[in-house]
């Protein structure tokens, strides 16, 4: 049976929880793969090498920068999951600020906090085989990657926009019909258009699509009532470090 290891870097645990959230699929999956390391789920931890490694979280400490190289060496296929692992996550907001100041705001004794000045995606450190976007990832996409890997085929992970999923669901466009600002036209597909389904504009938690046309979207966002401050904030959230333009 292929072995699988799940690793956590700087993150909230939500993406690896997605694996435990696979209620109907979890036990059947464990009959197809051997879980060799998954600290959140099991006390068993086996040494490498591993056929598949799933990595959640971004690299924010010198130790993590070392550890990701070791995991790459030990892993046949490296799948990175979630906005933290694929773009640096919300903690990448430090990349635009003074980390020393951040440290002193949160911690009484900032000199004891060993952290890098940046939060970076896994791909900034090692070669990555598959990326799953999202804050958090979509359960269906996670199962698609695992199924494809077990079957020896290429996973089907569209890199188009949320708009395509929204249209396919037959939802009314929140921006056209209600004037609600929406990042759907430039955001990577994968969630299934969750926000428009609740009358909310997409807020970009899957990060930029392949070749997003942000300059074309900005006037529409302005027409929907967004000012300079809001425009600045809306692209600086869960995928702030990603290439939006």
């Amino acid at each position, binding site marked *: 049976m292929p072995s699988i290891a799940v690793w956590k870097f700087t993150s909230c645990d939500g993406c690896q*929880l997605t694996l435990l959230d696979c209620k109907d699929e979890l*036990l059947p999956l464990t009959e197809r793969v051997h879980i060799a390391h998954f*600290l959140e789920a099991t006390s*068993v*931890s086996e040494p490498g090498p591993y056929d598949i490694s799933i990595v959640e979280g971004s690299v924010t400490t010198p130790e993590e920068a070392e550890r990701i190289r070791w995991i790459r060496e030990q892993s046949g296929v490296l799948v990175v999951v979630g906005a933290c692992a694929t773009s640096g996550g919300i903690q990448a907001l430090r990349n635009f600020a003074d980390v020393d100041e951040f440290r002193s705001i949160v911690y009484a004794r900032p000199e*004891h906090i060993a952290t890098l000045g940046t939060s970076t995606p896994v791909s900034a450190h090692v070669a990555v085989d598959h990326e799953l976007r999202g804050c958090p990832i979509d359960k269906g996409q996670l199962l698609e990657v695992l199924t494809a890997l077990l079957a020896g085929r290429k996973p089907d992970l569209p890199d188009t926009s949320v708009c395509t999923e929204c249209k396919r669901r037959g939802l009314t466009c929140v921006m056209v019909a209600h004037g609600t600002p929406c990042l759907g036209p430039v955001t990577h597909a994968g969630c299934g258009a969750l*926000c428009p389904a*609740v009358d*909310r504009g997409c807020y970009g938690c899957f990060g930029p699509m392949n070749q997003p046309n942000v300059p074309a979207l900005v006037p529409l966002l302005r027409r929907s009532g967004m000012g300079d401050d809001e425009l600045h904030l809306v692209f600086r959230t869960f995928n702030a470090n990603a290439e939006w333009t």
Partner: protein
Amino acid sequence: MTHRANRTLQVAGLARVEGEGALHVRTVDGEVDRVELNIYEPPRFFEAFLRGRDFREPPDITARICGICPVAYQMSACLAIEDACGVRVDGQLRALRRLLYCGEWISSHTLHIHLLHAPDFLGFPDGIAMAGAHRAIVERGLALKKAGNQIMDLVGGRAIHPVNVRVGGFYRVPTPEELRPLAKTLHQALYDALGTLEWVAGFDFPDLEVPHDLLALRDVEGYPLDRGEPCVSNGLAFPTAEFGRHVVEHQVAHSTALHARLDDRMFLVGPLARYSLNSDRLSPVAREAADAAGLGPVCRNPFRSIVVRAVEVVYAVEEALRIIESYERPDSPAVEVNPRAGVGHGITEAPRGLLYHRYELDQAGRILSADIVPPTSQNQSAIEADVTQVVHSHQHLDDHALQSLCEQTIRNYDPCISCSAHFLDFTRERT
């Protein structure tokens, strides 16, 4: 007897907890000399980058502190900002928030009971190995968790980091017809929750009676989730705005982590505290089930927290059913919230215990400062005290058995280290 005067136990990576932590225990001349629960989870600086953000953003941003209890973060954030803006969300909108929160309790508690904690009691390394011997029980647990997730999917738009929550209420509120299928799922879930409670009540529980003060919310009615006043087992109660005056972090000599104290006393938050201060507030079915499970009105044995969690799952399922049955769609999905300069406080009961948020806003609604106190930070002293007590009274165990028992003692609190990391001091352990 393998009684040894000097011994050191080190667990470099605690398994079956959320986030990354380590445990160090040292005994000298047969006395427990040092117990440290170390946090090596890297800091993420949430309080720092919330500065300058818009007042409508904290529910989405702070949800990302924890993938296990994002609703708790969203609810405490909403309450705090609404408090700052002088708004109170009531009626069916509040009921929907409570329904969403029930979903998170069911989901989080069920995960902890079945996949993280029960394997300790039955001697398995994880829930998957446990499923080999108890498949039907684990499947029942996963079905319960699915019911919780379904509530969050339907009301929140997504189970992890829900998209439908906003300051003032929701983006879209469901119709009664949309909620109805949930009721069918929840009737089965109630049956599963009662079965789960009966199952965990039959475990063997190590003896431990903790003297810590218990801190939990208590509301004018109902079991506390989304609202209430902080109350202490010694009879003290204080307004939410005074939380920071009572719960204070101290630096202690034996650990580099910050420890919270309640009026300079050891305390704990979470299921034991909630239950002991509110056992009279359970629904009739949950109350009866708790009695049958052997829980009195107060529970001070942290090993029995798994039983209390199972009681709370029964309650949350019943409460969710009650809300769905009396639900009428509100005219508007949210109350209008206009920013104003000021400070707001919000506390709700995360599955692991009290979660406090405080925000200071300027006139335009920009966040000037943010302060977040997660439950695991508050419990850190109690966890270490419990481990100390357990090591003291189980010195006859060999290292492996004692280490397992120490880990089980930590899991009694369902610690969420991802949450506490942005808050606690950070030390790297090289073991």
